[in-house]
């Protein structure tokens, strides 16, 4: 079906809210979902999978981290989907980089599901003049993304015969932040090139994925009562006046 970006974002936000995702994570991941859909990646399917396969308590719990160097961290996601933690992981990467002289930092994120949600968060929060590189390995293939304010690139040389990023990878993810000037070159193909024209023309989303997200979104709706009905606009007047 054809939708707008904001329609997907709003539906994803409500689904995340209904799934008891932490406040703020739901806002960010809702944007992430719509962003992925806008560049023709299955954001809604991934989000529905993430909700389907996680326990509500786990979604809201924080992550444990340990510092492995002056500006290096290891975070154990403990099987959590990046739909529920991508924003906080990217925050730590950026904050750590900001505290050093060369804007460098590294995070090793282990046992994380759906790492694709890290990409829109990196695109959303990447600092001016900075870059974020995110890599993971799945089924013997590397996925390597480079994110700057100018765009998002996928390293095609390392994707082998794959048509694109593997959406449901589980495993270890390496995130590196550095100044754009520190990048050797922008390897790979640009994957967000069509974003602007998609926003103008609307997003094509999978009907089934949309229905799955809509079902989760409906969980925030409160059933009607006689008392609540009288609190809406227009209540209590004749409308044929």
């Amino acid at each position, binding site marked *: *079906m*054809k*939708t*707008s*970006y*904001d*329609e997907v974002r*709003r539906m994803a936000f409500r689904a995340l809210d*209904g799934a008891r995702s*932490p*406040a*703020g*994570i739901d*806002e*960010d991941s809702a944007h992430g979902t719509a962003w992925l859909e806008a560049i023709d990646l299955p954001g809604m399917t991934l989000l529905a999978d993430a909700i389907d396969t996680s326990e509500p308590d786990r979604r*809201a719990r*924080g*992550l*444990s*981290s340990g510092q492995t160097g002056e500006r290096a961290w290891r*975070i154990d996601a403990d099987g959590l989907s990046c739909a*529920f*933690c991508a*924003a*906080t*992981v990217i*925050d*730590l990467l*950026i*904050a*750590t980089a*900001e*505290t050093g002289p060369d804007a460098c930092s590294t995070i090793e994120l282990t046992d994380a599901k759906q790492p694709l949600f890290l990409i829109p968060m990196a695109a*959303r*929060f990447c600092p001016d003049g900075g870059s974020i590189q995110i890599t993971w390995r799945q089924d013997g293939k590397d996925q390597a993304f480079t994110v700057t304010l100018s765009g998002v690139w996928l390293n095609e040389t390392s994707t082998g015969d794959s048509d694109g990023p593997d959406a449901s990878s589980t495993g270890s993810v390496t995130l590196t932040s550095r100044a754009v000037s520190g990048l050797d070159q922008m390897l790979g193909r640009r994957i967000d090139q069509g974003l602007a024209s998609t*926003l*103008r*023309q*609307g997003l094509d989303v999978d009907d089934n994925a949309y229905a799955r997200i809509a079902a989760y979104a*409906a*969980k*925030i*709706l*409160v*059933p*009607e*009562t006689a*008392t*609540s*009905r009288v*609190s*809406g*606009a*227009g*209540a*209590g*007047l004749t*409308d*044929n*006046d």
Partner: protein
Amino acid sequence: MTNDLQAAIETSEALKVALRPPDHVARLDRMGSYFQTPISFMRTLIRRMHRENWRFTTDRFELDADGFGRVVYMIHTPHGAFSFVAFSHDLSPEERTDRVIAERWDATFTLHDGPVDEADLDRLEQNVPLQETGRCSAQELVLSRANKSVRLFDYVTRTLAEGKQPDIRELAKIGYLMRTTAVYGNGKFGMGDFANLHDAPVLNAPFQAELLAVYMIRHFSVALIEHVARMRAPEHAVPLAAAQRRLLGIGNATGLGMAPFLIKHPILIHKWLCARETALARVRGIDQAEAAKRSRFSDLLDRATAHVAEWNVEDSRQQNRIETLRTELADLRRDLDNTPDDVLPEQRPWDNLFRRIEARCSLEAQELTVSLLLETYAELICDLETEMASNEIETTLPAMRLGELKAIIEKDYRWALDIDFSSPEAQHYFWYYSEDKEEPRRGPRFEEPGAECEMRLGFGREVNGLYAELARLDGDGLNNLTAEFLLRRPKWRSTVRRVQTLTRFPYGEIRNNLLGRDCLPIDLLRCKLSFFGATKFDPKSDLWTRITMYQGAPHIDELGADDVDDWAFPVTGSSGAAP
């Protein structure tokens, strides 16, 4: 807070007179006393139409003798054309309801980017009448519907068909032929995302697409009634006279759907309030006023007095406020006549006037005075209309130390820290979306089910809880990065981001507990509607209000007039008060 803004609030260097501080301004009782100003969005749109010489043409007018069918208007702007498409339906009285939960309406509308062809029109005819259950395309920008004010519609049709003009007193009792029950935009139901409009100079100010649609609904409502009268009596029917036509606006029933918007868009709300306060400070800072400006103020005061004299509502709280306001306006007129040098002295006359009103009068009078001063010097403040849009997003500052975050809360959220949220009174209400068409509603937390699904509007409570957690940290803990904290405690992400962001946008946080028993949502509604440019606020409860939009505004064939912007405080003359 930016250095410039901080300076403007704390000192009078930049503006001669300081901005009123956020703690004074961003409070519900004051915001619920606002009136239209020259930088209200309807005013901005009308000025743009005038300035850019917009043209309006009727491409299709396919209505039957009873006024049912379809109409397409084209709106030609220097930056491109829009189509406004209207479908007029036969609606039985039992189907007519202003509730958002209605399923059929007297008329349904869309604003479409560019011309519509036959295929577009067929698609729109299948979907627009369905409203929320239909689908739009990215070319549609607004979806809306309206119902007739049946009593007035019948009366005006009858009189026009008889070759007579309707009595102004009858028109004034209602003020509109149609009232909208929803105006949707920004990507809903498949429509175009407004983020794309930021490149389009025509509609890049707040709510311009929606208000353009409402303006066209007003035009359609007049065209419709003149058509029906003409069909009924081709020999005798006359069109509405200019005076009658002018005072017909568009009605609206506005409920809680608008209230969450103000809480969820704090950067935008900051921009609106900051522009209004900057405008006020500019006028108060004028050293001396020439005679023409004093005379203009005096005329506007008379017009506002007449407007308020015609403003009567059933709600006893609002009616009491209106009656107090009438007395205060009469007092000001008397003082202005008897002791003009006291009211408007030679030096800083407007600042003196404003201080006088602040010291003596109600919030309604204070905020009406803001509007009067801004009207008097519209040319001095209208540039601020360009400062009222925002596409900035709230951003976390992950490298901020927690000690700094704690200090910000102590400085900016004292009002929230002072509330005892363990008291049931402080959490009396919860806000939620109903299963019934997702209508936003508010219910008593301890009496109605559904509190676990509540919307996040209680930021006072959230900040209070965050602060309690930060207060338990020791020195090492407070030296941690925000990012480290949020990784462990993601539940605070939204609250932290809001606190950090609003240090730069201090008018964006309303200093009231929206969950508290004493919260009146009607204040939120009036604030937002005043920024739209609405008038004649008519609260029907604490939760919803009727209003009139574009009453007194020029119609499309009057947009070339020099006084196109002079329609504040519309007066019908129905009360006997002189305009």
